[in-house]
């Protein structure tokens, strides 16, 4: 095929599209790109104008394979797929393939396979049929028609899919930032009671004080009372002696409180003061009012 014939073929294809604006919405923009090569609409182009191979490639890319090209050729003839004229379609298809070859484009193998298939169908259609066998004889075009129909279904499905309202086009996702936990409160480490006890056990062992362990259980209530008395002395300089004791705690509670006071006196932490004989007895912190500042 000569180059000028090839160019004519391209022009024919382009004009077909111009006449059939409504046939395929998607192909039009690509056609326009093709038409605007060198800044000129292609229909005004003289026949011997050189078409750069890139332009043809762009054109080629508008078809999603041989089935798509065949569908285009069928539509161009305003034909139903079911009434496909194999000879005519094959000729047009072959022209197109020849055109691609003329421009030395790397022809995708599938286009050549389809060319062979079309040739086979065409020759089978030309074969004379034995009389009476028509009903059983399968239409040689049937397989191709089914493939074309099937492809067309999915081509349409893809178009419908493209028209479905979707994210990033019809809808934008919303994802407000979550407030961080750190904004509310700091995460603090947790301790288990066992951890505390085992830490104590270890330190006691290390200090060689283990033999005293048996006394710990009992004095704890006294130690606690000592702490409570000291705490009370932080709130008030003078703590009435009687207030240390709570009769509701019973005899044992009173004893614990008393031992705690004795222990505090022994450790020089508190003093007992009495203004006069039979006057109320007060506990006073020996160091005065403790301050809360560490060390």
């Amino acid at each position, binding site marked *: 095929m000569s180059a000028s014939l090839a160019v004519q073929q391209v022009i024919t294809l382009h004009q077909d599209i111009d006449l059939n604006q409504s046939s395929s919405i998607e192909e039009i923009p690509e056609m326009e790109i093709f038409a605007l090569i060198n800044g000129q609409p292609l229909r005004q182009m003289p026949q011997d104008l050189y078409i750069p191979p890139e332009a043809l490639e762009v054109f080629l890319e508008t078809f999603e*394979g041989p089935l798509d090209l065949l569908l285009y050729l069928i539509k161009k003839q305003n034909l139903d797929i079911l009434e496909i004229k194999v*000879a005519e379609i094959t000729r047009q298809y072959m022209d197109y393939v020849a055109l691609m070859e003329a421009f030395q484009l790397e022809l995708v193998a599938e286009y050549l396979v389809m060319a062979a298939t079309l040739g086979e169908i065409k020759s089978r259609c030309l074969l004379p049929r034995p009389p009476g066998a028509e009903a059983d004889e399968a239409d040689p075009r049937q397989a191709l028609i089914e493939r074309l129909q099937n492809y067309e279904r999915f081509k349409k499905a893809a178009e419908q899919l493209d028209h479905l309202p979707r*994210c990033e086009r019809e809808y934008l*996702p919303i994802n407000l930032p979550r407030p961080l936990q750190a904004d509310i409160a700091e995460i603090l480490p947790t301790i288990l009671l066992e951890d505390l006890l085992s830490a104590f056990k270890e330190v006691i062992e290390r200090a060689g004080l283990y033999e005293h362990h048996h006394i710990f259980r009992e004095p704890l209530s006294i130690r606690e009372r000592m702490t409570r008395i000291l705490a009370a002395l932080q709130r008030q300089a003078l703590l009435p002696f009687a207030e240390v004791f709570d009769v509701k705690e019973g005899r044992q509670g009173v004893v614990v409180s008393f031992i705690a006071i004795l222990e505090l006196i022994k450790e020089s932490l508190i003093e007992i003061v009495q203004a006069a004989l039979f006057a109320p007895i007060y506990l006073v912190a020996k160091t005065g009012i403790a301050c809360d500042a560490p060390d």
Partner: protein
Amino acid sequence: MPPIELKLIIEALLFCSEKPLSVAQLQQQLVMRASDCSELTDPVDVPSNMQNTLSGMQGLVRHELESAAVEPVVTVYGQPAQVPIPLATADEICQALSALQSDYQGRGVQLQEVASGFRFQSSIEVTPWVLQAKSQKAPRYSRALLETLAIIAYKQPITRAEIEDVRGIAVSSHIVRTLQERDWVRVVGHKEVPGKPALLATTRGFLDYFNLRYLQDLPALADLRQPVTEATDITV
């Protein structure tokens, strides 16, 4: 602190969620959060509709509850806290969701149900304006990608060779990879034929993206028609 309506909690959860949340996921979130909320919310203020019996809960949520029941002491910021776990039944969550859906009618954002749950999204009328304001363009997809995606969606599970059969041309690896990276398509198995090719199927992410709840919400595929069989009609 006045009682908090379940609806408002769900509203905020959905607005702050990266992905759509299903009713079950919302339930789970409410249980999970409950332990963290004890310090900030007086248990007395927990809305009555959230103080439900464990019987209303199902599946994972129920499991969570049972394990929570074994150990009711939860630690909140390192402080022990024994709190009644505020809960909501699936029904109550559904009611709240449909109340929210009508609350947001005619607003700039709307509550949409998609395959993997509920999400807030910009309303269709407003989106073009938002895109323009953000100087963003909606992404476009090639015909090759859309056709491949459509074939997978309608004929799943399907091998790449079968897709190529329909399209009559090779499917580029790039397209399959893009579809997988977008979480629209995934390999669901391998076909028992020589070479054991991967079987591709669409994901929930695909349905979410196209605002669909189920695969059958896709537009119907055209029917195949029988070709005219009369030999005389064949024009050669």
